């Protein structure tokens, strides 16, 4: 664990910020829903490199030491720290013992905005603490573990090096993609040096395309029997290894979202798997962290794009893992999410998307019993409130004409290619399509955060609502404690119960001489199951969502007894007479 200290530089920066905050009182009028005078100034209409992310995380930790803990959970392949920010009210109990919500982003390196959405969440929660009763109570009850990027190496590569909107997607390990014995010998080439990998087209008498006479950015296909002017040559690049193929062996390729330890399958079953579950340092760091934090009850992973709230299973072969009782809870939370995030639909990975074995959300749920969603951020609905679907060229050209005024498109320009001769290079930039344009970023971040807050809110919340005593003669009495879980999620999901993933909840009595202990199954008909061994600490397999568990002891004496509840995912509480 590594905690980052103040630097004098930061302290100075914060002094300056405070100065400007007091000016804000005069110049600004509060908007509902947004921190008005944030201690940490941040812009939610741009993207952060890894350095920017770390900087913001440190600023938040420095500004709110009693609400946050910054920790490196491991190192990436290239040696960057993978930082996690724990957000909770540190004055009301050990954050690692409160029911927790885990959030990460950017597992696919080109799917960048998950990091900003995660950061926004940390920023919003810390800035609003003390402002809103709801947030005060939320951080008193819960902990948020926020890891903005779990693919820091390739995030920076995506931003700093020439890429398409779809690359690198993997991390920075270079593999032999074409099986020729060399690894990474023929990646993209940024021929026009604009840091975007766009398209190459060439005038050709046998071409099938023409430039749209009304919009020369657009290539349209001519009818089969007609002659066109242009042929498509694919993404910008050269055949660097003289094998007759262009761009066939760049960074990766592997998929960090095929590296997780639930029903993992090798590369030949699905392209993208690496060597074995958690063979990538980034996913291993997350797995180690999650194994050490059994208080995580809910989890969220951010991808892009398409406007989806996804649950598992990732593959049809794993349908039986998701049982009806848990699906009811998944449905209840995600259906609320659909209302909160316009344009997003609640879907199931294997049915509505494609098959994934060894994906992150399946390990979180299948392997740890944690209710987990993946959101595919950004949906074209946000442009014109129409459902044109992913990659609708017509709509995208319209966006760039009327909303972004040409910022998204590299106009076709002639280029002399060493292998193709005279060509033209142009097309949409890498940061358009999948990534939100700046003006749409903050709103969608807020809405997705609201969904994760709802999810976190529904993790178990336990209370001892009633303790009854009844004398049964011979100096003995019955003590019956009722423990209530006032939220949707049980302390153990059905998947957890099936495999005993986490230990039972412990309900114990002290300062009393216990003769017998039992769990009352039906109060009205006096049905109970006795725990013969060690009845002082009753082992309760589960405390259901929106339900109660009654524990009863027969004790002799015991005037000032105390009852403790200790649940991995439900937290700790006690009651004393």
């Amino acid at each position, binding site marked *: 664990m590594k905690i980052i200290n103040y630097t004098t530089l930061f302290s100075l920066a914060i002094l300056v910020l405070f100065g400007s905050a007091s000016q804000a009182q005069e110049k600004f009028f509060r908007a509902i829903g947004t921190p008005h005078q944030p201690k940490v100034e941040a812009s939610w209409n741009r993207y952060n490199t890894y350095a920017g992310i770390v900087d913001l995380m440190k600023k938040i930790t420095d500004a709110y030491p009693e609400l946050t803990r910054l920790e490196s959970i491991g190192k990436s392949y290239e040696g960057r720290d993978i930082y996690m920010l724990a957000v909770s009210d540190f004055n009301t109990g050990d954050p690692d013992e409160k029911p927790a919500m885990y959030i990460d982003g950017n597992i696919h390196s080109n799917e960048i905005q998950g990091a900003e959405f995660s950061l926004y969440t940390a920023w919003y929660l810390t800035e609003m603490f003390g402002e809103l009763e709801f947030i005060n109570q939320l951080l008193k009850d819960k902990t948020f573990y926020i890891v903005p990027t779990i693919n820091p190496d390739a995030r920076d590569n995506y931003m700093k090096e020439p890429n398409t909107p779809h690359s690198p997607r993997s991390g920075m390990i270079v593999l032999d993609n074409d099986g020729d*014995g060399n690894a990474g010998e023929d990646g993209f080439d940024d021929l026009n040096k604009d840091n975007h990998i766009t398209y190459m087209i060439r005038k050709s008498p046998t071409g099938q395309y023409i430039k749209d006479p009304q919009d020369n950015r657009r290539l349209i296909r001519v009818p089969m029997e007609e002659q066109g002017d242009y042929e498509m040559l694919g993404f910008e690049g050269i055949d660097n290894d003289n094998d007759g193929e262009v761009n066939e062996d760049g960074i990766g390729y592997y998929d960090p979202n095929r590296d997780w330890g639930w029903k*993992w399958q090798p590369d030949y079953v699905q392209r993208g798997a690496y060597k074995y579950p958690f063979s990538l340092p980034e996913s291993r760091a997350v797995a180690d962290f999650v194994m050490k934090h059994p208080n995580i009850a809910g989890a969220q992973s951010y991808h892009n794009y398409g406007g989806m709230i996804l649950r598992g299973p990732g593959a049809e072969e794993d349908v039986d893992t998701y049982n009806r009782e848990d699906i009811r809870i998944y449905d209840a939370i995600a259906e609320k999410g659909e209302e909160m995030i316009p344009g997003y639909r609640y879907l199931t990975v294997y049915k509505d998307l494609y098959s994934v074995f060894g994906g992150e959300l399946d*390990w979180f749920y299948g392997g740890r019993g944690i209710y987990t969603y993946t959101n595919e951020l950004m949906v074209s609905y946000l442009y014109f409130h129409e459902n044109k679907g992913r990659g609708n060229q017509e709509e995208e050209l319209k966006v760039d004409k009327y909303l972004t005024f040409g910022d998204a498109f590299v106009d076709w320009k002639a280029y002399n290619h060493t292998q193709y001769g005279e060509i033209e290079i142009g097309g949409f930039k890498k940061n358009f399509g999948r990534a939100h344009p700046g003006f749409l970023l903050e709103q969608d971040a807020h809405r997705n955060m609201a969904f994760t807050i709802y999810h976190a809110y529904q993790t178990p919340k336990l209370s001892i609502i009633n303790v009854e005593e009844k004398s049964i003669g011979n100096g003995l009495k019955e003590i019956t404690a009722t423990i209530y879980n006032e939220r949707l999620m049980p302390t153990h999901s059905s998947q957890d119960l099936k495999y005993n993933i986490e230990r039972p909840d412990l309900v114990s009595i002290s300062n009393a001489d216990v003769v017998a202990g039992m769990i009352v199954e039906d109060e009205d008909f006096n049905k109970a199951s006795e725990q013969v061994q060690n009845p002082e600490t009753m082992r309760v397999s589960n405390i259901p969502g929106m339900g109660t568990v009654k524990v009863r002891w027969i004790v002799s004496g015991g005037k000032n007894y105390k009852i403790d509840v200790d649940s991995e995912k439900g937290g700790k509480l006690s009651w004393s007479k």
Partner: protein
Amino acid sequence: MKHIPVILMLILAQSLAFAQDNYPDLKQISKRLKALDKNSSVNLSTLTETAGRQDIYVLKIGTGDLDNKPAIAVMGGVEGYHVLSVELALQFAERLVTEEAKALEETTFYIFPNMSPDAYAQYHEELKYERRGNASNLDHDRDGRLNEDPYEDLNKDGLITQLRIESPLGKYVPHPSDPRAMMEVDTSSSSATRYRLYSEGLDNDKDDKFNEGLKEGYAFNKIFSFKFPVFEPLAGDYAVSQKETRALLDYLYKQFNIYAFVTFGPANNLSSPLKYNAQEAKKRIVSSPLEGDVAINKMISEIYNESISQKPYKQDNQGTDGDFFQWAYFHFGRLSFSTPGWWVPEAKKDTTSTSDQKIKETEVSNFLKWAEQENLSNVFVAWEKIEHPDFKNQTVEVGGVKPFVMHNPPFSKVDSIATEHTHFILKLAQQQQKLEFHNLKVEDLKGGLKRITVDLLNNGNLPSHSELGQRSRWLKKIRVDLGASEEDILVGNTVELIDRMEALETKTLSWIVKGSGNINLKAGAPHTGFADININL
């Protein structure tokens, strides 16, 4: 003479190996490995240290360009209680370098002598039991408590055997032909005294289960990703979770020349080959070996049965969930062979008894009969009454077959087993794929152009890639490199890739080039070896 000390060391190693009367302990093993390392063809290295602070070793044995010769990996100690497997792997290495070094001309060998040293050590501990798990912590019964119900040596004989308790509730009765052996009750044995049967120990946590909270960790042979038995005892929460397992795989994934594994472990696909199941083979998650690979298995199995004198008996373990042997094929795409090396033979029929024809031998009764025929007296702890706190006022006895003896032969038998298995592995190596160029032709065309034609032959009994391996990115394709510049090649490429060549298959390659002089043509992959030819234009 530089070689003399090496030879002396080897003789020393030999004498260490053969003068022993028991399976070696970990110290003796590392001594023998270090002695082997003195040989110039041997490279000993340590992959990692286990949670029990034991080294995981690998011997890489080969000569010349050893990374570009086809390689066989030999695995020992996939199960800690199977001490024979470690000795077989060690002796294979010793015999290879002293007696069979000629094999290194064509093949490189990787020997992983002991993958379960933490568990193996139990064989030499004061308290002996058949241990599988390493020294990591694992909550086997997932009740939130660690090591809460281990074995106890109740009769203080240094061995964990069994407990039997006389009880009408019991499900076991003494075997009619040998009352020392316990067998499951059936309706024909209604008059016999019934017993409950447990492993030797106490119910420490009073949960009516005996020794379910073991003081040992993960079993190497149960934590691989093929059919990983998630959350089961000895397996844990996810596959390949252990340091030594990860270190092994990280190493193997870099050794592109390995084409086959021979595992000394409980599974056996050598006495009889695996079967092909079309339905399972065609699924997206393949769980039957593919048809072509089953044919290879059959051929190698025949060679095994010719090499090994012991007759198969009850060899029906063809893989268990999460084991190494299946991983090597299904997830690593290599040919994978496994044998226990030795098993309890079928005892000779009792000729004196006439009546009890119908009595079915159990594994234990057969073992006891065989041991008697072999004059092995030291294999059974006679049932003896003890007081047991969990069964007050009941008749409780401790006894049973001693640990290890049903999986490991008396040490005196190991020598001949090792010799036979060494010969088998070397015969396997002789089947391997071998690329050769034949019929090189250079035709002069007009204007200084030349057409090169050559046949590439796989002159081996194995294909260049197993059928499944052909699908894996971790097995390289055959790469054909013509050493001419791109501009000089008019037809054909400088580099061409071939996915697979069957046993004895020929492919004709051709190019049209310009220019003159000598150029080099090369074809192969690390696991097929390389063929090389000079072309004079």
